[in-house]
């Protein structure tokens, strides 16, 4: 949910309760004001009545008006002074229901006569006040809703624009590509702060990233000499005459581990170099020729495993690439197709004008998620480090090659497809 929508939800809840509160108070205040007004009128009427009656009592004749506005009763006995103002319900014949009146009830002695008097005035019904009020509140709420909607749109266009600019820049940003990101100055303090902090953070991350890469590169170099010492000492030790079987076993295991370590080092070093874009010098490369030469190198391995290679050259495929990287790419792919193949297996190499696919027979992979295949250290067996395919992936990334993997289950075919010149 967008921040602004979220904010609007809360605002609407607040508006709702405020409007209800305003409505209720308005209702009561209106009622109070009306009664106050009526009281004034009724007091004025009382004053007029007393004034009239002190002149003459002719007004008594008119006492029974149909709307029962004034009611005067002359008393024979003396009445104590009394005055009361209140609401009262009186049944109305024409409307067939009780109507609410404001009335003043008082006694007065005028020229020796005692009068008991009522003056009444029809009140506005409460329901007829509440109805329009409710409609008004609903209307106001709707108006707020619509205003809020348009206001939000306007705000997200104007005020939040720098935020979305920053966001889209961050989305595109790639640490590896060594590009600096420039976040423009906005006229909103919070966004300026955000951009500033982001800028500082990114510089720090970049700095750390390069330190780490430098470290990886240096380590992989520096480790090779000590490894060479270990390897040479093992080799010298191997020459001893009186070694037991178990000692040979230990030496063999040590040698294998040194071998593994140095391979790992090499691969990591290469990976870092590819990531650092250290391979320039682009040349036109005929993929078919390159594959031919690689297959020639692997001829005896193919023979020992009885693997049949079928080459389908539909079209000539020429790519612009660094020759060393192209070599590593094809080498790794073919190596993989042989390594993970079965005895009496097959390799099909299909070359089209902008597509290369290498398929091989082989056992099903142990991993479920095939995207993990290209990740570092995702390995199919303990013999390899699983760096081969991540090197392939990295080379593809750097050279705008789209690589994908498919597996046809019932036929046990693994296929790597490379599409060249895909511009994103």
């Amino acid at each position, binding site marked *: 949910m967008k921040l602004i929508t979220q904010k609007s939800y809360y605002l609407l809840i607040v508006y709702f309760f405020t409007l209800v509160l305003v409505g209720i108070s308005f209702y009561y205040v209106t009622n109070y004001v009306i009664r106050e007004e009526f009281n004034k009128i009724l007091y004025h009427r009382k004053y007029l009545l007393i004034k009239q009656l002190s002149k003459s009592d002719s007004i008594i004749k008119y006492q029974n008006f149909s709307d029962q506005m004034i009611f005067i009763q002359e008393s024979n006995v003396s009445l104590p002074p009394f005055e009361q103002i209140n609401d009262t319900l009186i049944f109305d014949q024409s409307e067939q229901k009780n109507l609410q009146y404001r009335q003043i009830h008082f006694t007065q002695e005028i020229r020796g006569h005692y009068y008991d008097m009522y003056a009444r005035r029809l009140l506005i019904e409460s329901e007829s006040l509440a109805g329009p009020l409710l409609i008004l509140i609903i209307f106001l709420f709707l108006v707020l809703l619509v205003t809020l909607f348009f206001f939000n749109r306007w705000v997200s266009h104007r005020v939040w624009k720098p935020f979305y600019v920053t966001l889209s820049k961050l989305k595109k940003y790639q640490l590896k590509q060594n590009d600096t990101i420039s976040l423009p100055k906005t006229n909103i303090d919070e966004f300026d702060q955000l951009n500033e902090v982001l800028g500082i953070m990114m510089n720090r991350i970049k700095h750390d990233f390069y330190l780490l890469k430098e470290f990886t590169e240096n380590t992989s170099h520096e480790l090779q000499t000590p490894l060479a010492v270990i390897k040479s000492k093992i080799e010298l030790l191997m020459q001893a005459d009186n070694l037991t079987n178990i000692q040979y*076993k230990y030496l063999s295991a040590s040698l294998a581990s040194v071998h593994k370590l140095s391979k790992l080092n090499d691969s990591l070093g290469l990976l870092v170099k590819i990531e650092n874009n250290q391979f320039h010098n682009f040349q036109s490369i005929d993929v078919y020729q390159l594959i031919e030469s690689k297959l020639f190198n692997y001829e005896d391995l193919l023979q020992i495993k009885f693997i049949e290679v079928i080459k389908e050259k539909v079209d000539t495929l020429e790519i612009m690439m660094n020759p*060393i990287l192209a*070599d590593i790419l094809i080498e790794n792919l073919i190596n993989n197709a042989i390594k993970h193949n079965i005895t009496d297996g097959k390799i099909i190499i299909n070359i089209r004008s902008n597509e290369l696919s290498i398929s091989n027979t082989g056992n099903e992979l142990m991993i479920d998620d095939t995207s993990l295949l290209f990740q570092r250290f995702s390995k199919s067996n303990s013999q390899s480090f699983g760096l081969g395919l991540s090197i392939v992936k990295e080379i593809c990334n750097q050279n705008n090659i789209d690589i994908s993997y498919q597996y046809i289950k019932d036929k046990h075919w693994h296929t790597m497809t490379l599409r060249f010149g895909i511009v994103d």
Partner: protein
Amino acid sequence: MKILVIEDEEELLNSISNYLQEEQFHCEYALDLKNARFRLNRETFDCFIVDIGLPDGSGLELVKEIKKEQPESFIIIISAKSSTENKVEGLNIGADDYLTKPFDLSELNARVNSGLRRYKPVKKKHVEFNELKIKTDIYQVLVHDIEISLTKKEYDLLLYFITNKNRVISKLAIIEHLWGGYQDSNESYGFLYAQIKNLRKKLSIAGCNDYIENINRIGYKFRAN
């Protein structure tokens, strides 16, 4: 045969000279560029083994100087840098071979021998071992002076064995030698066994003794007696 090894890691230096000395090579050493230049100006060597990362500069500079001062000698670079560009650069400035650390001593020995053969007259290019004879200039193998036909891999394997005769050579070293660095799966052992089996068979058919001895798990030894 005199070899000068220029390497700043003393233990590696020891290992190299230890291994090569047994091959009747006379090994001298220098720990830095200064010392190496000093030796270079006073003596002649048949072979130089040069490390690139030296404390007082790059071994590449030294390679250029050696090429100028003693162009007849054979130069092998040993370096931690394994990339193709580094190799190309090293070979371009005059080195004859490039070996990446960590290397097998048997591999270094094979390279030194092969390099030294290169500058010798044809007659001396022949490697002989009892009834076996390898004419390295024409890639020919003779058993009791009768030529036998070997594949490229079998030939390489036999030459590697004879160069490192009486030494235990690890299987991994042989695999690296034959197939380069790319094969690192369990299967590469299978490839190796197949090659050894074929080589043994061909040699024994030709009436050659079986000199290849299995050394428990670790590798093989080409035994002279």
